[in-house]
């Protein structure tokens, strides 16, 4: 496999970014769009080539896929610790490579239509390229620090893209929030890296993940508050992952991030960046599994299950379609986390791991599709809110069909992609824990319900009064929709277990029929309910909402998590820490310093008064001084 070729994959988007960024003013928008798409097309083709070579030309060695690592030193810390930059090719990184390439390419194409006429057109493509570069870097990272570096870079690209409409205060606030919340999570990540680096002496994934390697076996060496330090490190790293993947309670930035342009939401906040957290845990999966018997994995599983349910409940009551999709994303990401949390390492036990990755793959396709469809709808009706939509199936047939496919896929209706991956997850959870399984099943039903709630709300119901009749989006936008719809429909038939598993040995996956039927029934029930409630204009939803009372309001207000955060940041951190710090500095610290100066001045005022200008006072002082000198020097000292 050609190293240079692999390097080209991330560096082409970087080059595109630099070209577009530097010649920002001198490139015509049309040209910049084409540059962006072409660049990414090359990257995508290369990714596919690499994937093909890895899986089919190179193939398995000793029954398992081997990781291929190319790296060079970037920075040396100590004799043993250093940051390398390089590429790590293994099944999951290649799978992610494909996901990123395909979705990003689709979004690039789509954006040419969606962003047409926007004054920041070139800038948009520049940022998209920057993001793609960072994401490639993250995916291909060979060590913890490299992943952290690109982790931060995707964070900042996300910041820039959410704040793309920077004159809109809500977008600015959302961008800031996204960055700071993930930054807080990254703090955990960084400390986790420091801890792991300190105790194991390496950042390298290959060494850290080696089940027989010394770094892993050192976990028992020292403990801290009842857990081994490595477990603490892993927990903190999971915190970082939870921040990026919007796990409860660090999810608050994701819905707000929908302020960004819709293609951005599709690319970053649905398909690629937000799965980085899942990817991180998957990347370190052997470590999570082996250190202290997977104690942290249990945390992962429970956080995942809770977030999934939590997000699904909120999604039901939201009226902004992008927010519904955002909560849906959060719920699905949590699903993947849950699957990782319940997974074992080798053989059949590793089903959860494989299912998680599988779901990541399919979810990227159908969720990106959902977002792009939503973008298409928003493009047509110029509103994000359900109340401004309805009956669009007549006006936008392609969008309608593709949205329906995606919605069915996420609802887990066979034979669409979502069914297969979701089924694996449910099977894996079922093996492990009944409570979690129940939650997962419930979430599956809720997912179908809220998805079809917006589906019916957008495409059926009765028409509101449109100012201008909505019409189907241009081909640049619908072609990506169609392509993604095909992927969404067919991705489930990929024999995923053959390529990806926790121990990299092929896993034969078979459908657990009773579980599958239960899940499908749950999905159909959800769809049915939605059909009942939202197909026609009825007062059923309102009555249901009224009967649920508190639960509904709480859900509508997202369980007041935002308010809690606002309280903590505004009232506690700003009012009680930052402001006193600033005041303390001005008044106490600076006051002391200025006080020293002032007291000097005051003392000098006092001394100045002795200089009275009266000769007599001077004479008196003189006489007294002479006396002192005489008495002291002549009589005292000569005695």
């Amino acid at each position, binding site marked *: 496999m050609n190293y240079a070729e692999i390097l080209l994959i991330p560096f082409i988007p970087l080059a595109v970014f630099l070209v577009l960024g530097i010649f920002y003013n001198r490139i015509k928008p049309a040209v910049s769009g084409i540059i962006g798409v072409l660049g990414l097309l090359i990257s995508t083709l290369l990714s596919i080539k690499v994937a093909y070579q890895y899986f089919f030309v190179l193939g398995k060695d000793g029954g398992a896929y081997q990781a291929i690592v190319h790296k060079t030193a970037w*920075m040396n810390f100590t004799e043993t610790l250093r940051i390398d930059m390089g590429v790590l090719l293994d099944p999951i990184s290649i799978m992610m490579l494909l996901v990123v390439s395909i979705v990003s390419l689709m979004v690039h194409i789509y954006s040419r239509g969606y962003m047409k006429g926007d004054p920041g057109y070139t800038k948009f493509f520049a940022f998209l390229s920057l993001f793609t570069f960072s994401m490639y870097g993250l995916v291909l990272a060979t060590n913890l620090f490299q992943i952290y*570096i690109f982790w931060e870079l995707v964070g900042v690209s996300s910041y820039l893209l959410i704040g793309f409409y920077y004159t809109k205060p809500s977008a600015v606030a959302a961008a800031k929030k996204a960055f700071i919340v993930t*930054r807080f999570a990254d703090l955990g990540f960084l400390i986790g890296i420091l801890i792991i680096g300190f105790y194991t002496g390496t950042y390298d994934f290959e060494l850290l993940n080696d089940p027989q390697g010394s770094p892993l076996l050192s976990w028992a060496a020292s403990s801290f508050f009842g857990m081994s330090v490595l477990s603490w490190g892993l927990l903190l790293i999971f915190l970082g992952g939870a921040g990026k993947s919007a796990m409860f309670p660090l999810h608050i930035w994701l819905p707000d991030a929908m302020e960004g342009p819709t293609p951005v939401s599709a690319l970053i906040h649905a398909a690629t960046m937000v799965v980085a957290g899942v990817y991180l845990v998957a990347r370190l999966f052997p470590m999570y599994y082996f250190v202290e018997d997977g104690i942290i994995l249990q945390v992962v599983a429970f956080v995942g299950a809770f977030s999934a349910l939590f997000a699904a409940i909120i999604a039901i009551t939201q009226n902004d379609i992008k927010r519904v999709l955002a909560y849906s994303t959060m719920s699905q990401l949590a699903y993947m986390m849950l699957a990782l949390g319940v997974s074992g390492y080798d053989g059949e036990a590793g089903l959860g791991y494989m299912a998680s990755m599988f779901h990541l793959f399919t979810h990227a396709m159908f969720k990106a599709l959902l977002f792009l469809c939503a973008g298409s709808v928003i493009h047509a009706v110029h509103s994000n809110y359900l109340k401004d939509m309805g009956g669009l199936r007549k006006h936008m047939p392609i969008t309608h069909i593709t949205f329906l496919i995606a919605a069915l896929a996420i609802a887990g209706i066979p034979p669409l992609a979502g069914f297969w991956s979701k089924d694996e997850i449910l099977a894996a959870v079922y093996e492990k824990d009944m409570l979690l399984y129940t939650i997962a099943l419930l979430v599956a039903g809720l997912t179908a319900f809220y998805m079809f709630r917006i589906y019916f709300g957008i495409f059926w119901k009765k028409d509101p009064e449109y100012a201008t009749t909505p019409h189907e989006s241009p081909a640049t936008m619908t072609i990506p929709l169609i392509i993604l719809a095909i992927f969404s429909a067919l991705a489930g038939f990929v024999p995923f277990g053959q390529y990806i598993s926790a121990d990299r040995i092929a896993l034969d996956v078979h459908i657990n029929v009773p579980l599958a039927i239960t899940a499908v029934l749950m999905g159909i029930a959800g769809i049915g309910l939605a059909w009942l409630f939202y197909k026609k204009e009825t007062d059923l939803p309102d009555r249901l909402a009224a009967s649920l009372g508190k639960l509904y309001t709480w859900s509508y207000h997202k369980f007041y998590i935002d308010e809690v955060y606002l309280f903590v940041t505004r009232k506690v951190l*700003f009012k009680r820490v930052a402001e006193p710090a600033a005041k303390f500095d001005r008044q106490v*610290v*600076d006051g002391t*310093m200025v006080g020293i100066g002032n007291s000097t001045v005051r003392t000098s005022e006092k001394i100045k008064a002795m200089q009275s200008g009266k000769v007599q006072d001077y004479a008196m002082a003189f006489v007294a001084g002479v006396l002192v000198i005489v008495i002291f020097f002549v009589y005292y000292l000569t005695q």
Partner: protein
Amino acid sequence: MDILSLFLIVPGITILLLVFTRNLGQARLIALLGSIAQFAMSVNLVFSYMKERAINDSIMLFTKDLIWFEPFNIHYSIGADGITVTMLVLTSIVVMAGIFISWRIGDLPKEFFISLIVLATGVYGFFISLDLFIMFVFFELAVIPMYLLIGIWGSGRREFSAMKLTLMLMAASAVLLVGILGIYFNSDTAGNGFTFNIIELAAANIPAEAQKIFFPLTFIGFAVIGALFPFHTWSPDGHASAPTAVSMLHAGVLMKLGGYGVFRVALYVLPEGAVEWSWIFIFLSAFGVIYGAFAAVRQTDLKYINAYSSVSHLGLVLFALLMFNKTAWNGAIIQSLSHGFMTALFFALIGMIYERTHTRDVRKMGGLLKVIPMISATYVIAGLASLGLPGFSGFVAEMNIFVGAFEHENIYYRIATIFSVSAIVVTAVYILRVVGIMLMGPVKEEAYTQFPRVTWYERMGILLLLLPIIGIGVAPLWLSDLIYKSLHPFIQGVL
């Protein structure tokens, strides 16, 4: 002519020529030519150093030693190692950028540039001197012009600020002088007479008792100019009142004297004292890191925000220096450089923004990204660099510091490290707050659309400072190699 003395001679000639200039045009031309010469020299020095280092193993290269005052054994003794070289490059770049930024300085241009270059000379001298006494002399030489520069060309409460700054720094140098004399009078351990030479002092193994007494004096003396909490309060006022170029030089270069002095003198000459006292100064600096960041969150004046951010960032330098670890030290030096370029850039941008909006209050501005895109975009980049984004120098520096500090065998030091790591979140808060309020959002006033575009000299200033930030951030290896090797003799003294 030795290569290091040139760093004193060329500014000297520049000053001499400046005396004969008659108007702004001539003065800035001469100053610019002088600074370009300095820059060329510093670049040349990097290459000569690397060439020389390959064949020469002594601690200091390009050394020169002339007796200056026989009775006290004061020498004009200079030399350079990797750290000096990087600091000289930093200084020359910031000086050049500062001259570009002052391209249209209003009154008394000649005197302004003279003071600026005198300051630069002091800084160069400080970095290259190996003799404590002349180091002290150059330290004073760097501080004094500051008073004039702020007092005459400043704004706001300039006399007060200038006075405060000068007095606090003078008080610090008084403490420092006691420390230096203490070192001097305890240096005769081998019976060869007293010495001021740093290398000889380090070899002399000053008695532990004396080290314990004089370390805090020396440390505080230097750390005041490095804005150690709680001796940092001169910096916000000083920065706020100083003209742009002076803020740049001050924050970018002058404040580095603190960390450099601590490293060269306090830690190298008094290692045992340092070990003895490190805990309290680590506490102070770690506290300063968090505290500066939090204080910056609530500021409204751009320069104050930046000043407090400097307290936070430079706290990290002192923090790392006290960890006695090559990696952390490496980080401290890179952080010094990185902070130098970054704050200089910040102050330059603040100056440009102020020139256009005539205010530094963030609440009064809005939507600048739309009207002055280049300045604003650079501000965003500088901000991102400041909050430690990978790809910029700040990240490299901070990671070295954190990893290095975390290697410390004492668990409490590791906890202190975690404590100061958390400043990165607060940093993000105050940076993004400014970006959000000032640069983004709707354009606040109609008059903003009439803003003049970025001029060529502003562009030059920005580029000069931005390129090193990105350069260090993208390819840190050559720089840290340069520094890392030079740390070796120093760390051996401690262990």
